[in-house]
């Protein structure tokens, strides 16, 4: 029990340290995922299995997908091909696999073992968490929903301005093009936009 806790904690700390020393972003993302899984195992050992599941789903699932998408969108280019050749060498993915397999073995050992050993930590049931969440912390839930809405709108706004700019750039904004598309109305619009600055 104690040993499992220390092993999971050591895996988390070690993978976080390795994450900070990587040069490639994708390698760092791999180590960050392993670190989050290690922290999830620690939560499971502490008797907070609901929080452990949420950690894996939200952090290692959703947030990591966001990171991977952004890295994919940023890293397009010619040097990607030779980089990808280097990524396929086994030295890079061996150590995250080893760390993650340590965690898997540990979880299998814990699940196979008696559930009574898990009661040693202060086990807090998800039911208590739900009652506390929608009882005295109801205003916090509302505030969290407002925060998530603000995050959604903010991310949409930041992404939308970029798309808008690109669309303007791709549109051929010349008088000939506008005359080819439409008549006097379009030309009048072009004239007004040219006059305003």
């Amino acid at each position: 029990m104690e040993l499992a806790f220390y092993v999971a904690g050591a895996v988390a700390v070690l993978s976080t340290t390795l994450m900070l020393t990587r040069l490639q972003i994708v390698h760092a993302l791999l180590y960050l995922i392993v670190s989050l899984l290690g922290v999830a195992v620690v939560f499971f050992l502490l008797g907070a299995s609901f929080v452990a599941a949420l950690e894996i789903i939200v952090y290692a699932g959703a947030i990591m997908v966001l990171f991977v998408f952004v890295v994919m969108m940023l890293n397009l280019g010619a040097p990607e091909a030779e980089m990808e050749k280097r990524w396929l060498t086994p030295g890079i993915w061996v150590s995250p696999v080893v760390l993650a397999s340590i965690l898997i073995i540990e979880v299998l050992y814990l699940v196979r073992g008696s559930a009574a050993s898990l009661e040693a930590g202060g086990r807090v049931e998800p039911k208590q968490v739900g009652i506390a969440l929608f009882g005295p912390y109801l205003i916090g839930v509302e505030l969290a929903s407002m925060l998530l809405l603000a995050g959604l709108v903010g991310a949409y706004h930041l992404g939308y301005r970029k798309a808008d700019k690109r669309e303007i750039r791709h549109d051929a904004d010349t008088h000939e093009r506008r005359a080819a598309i439409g008549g006097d109305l379009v030309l009048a619009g072009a004239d007004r936009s040219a006059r305003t600055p």
Partner: protein
Amino acid sequence: MAGILFSLGLTGLLVRRNLIYVLMSLEVMLNAAGLAFVVAGARWHQADGQVMFLFILAMAAAEVSVGLAMVLAIYHRFKSLDVDELSEMRG
């Protein structure tokens, strides 16, 4: 252990110059804070620690979505510069 993770995230925040690494270090720090809450909740048999962890989770999700959108906007604005020098172009 939460302290170790938090200090690792803080050093990462201070040392690395890439914006994505900075965001990842922020993730680690928020995770460490949530770990401290859950450990305290398990120590005193209270559900408040896990409730606080849920709030931290929601906040981290919102923060990361906005932060990554800002990274994309910054990268598209200063496209000529290297990705690894993203944080130096904000000056």
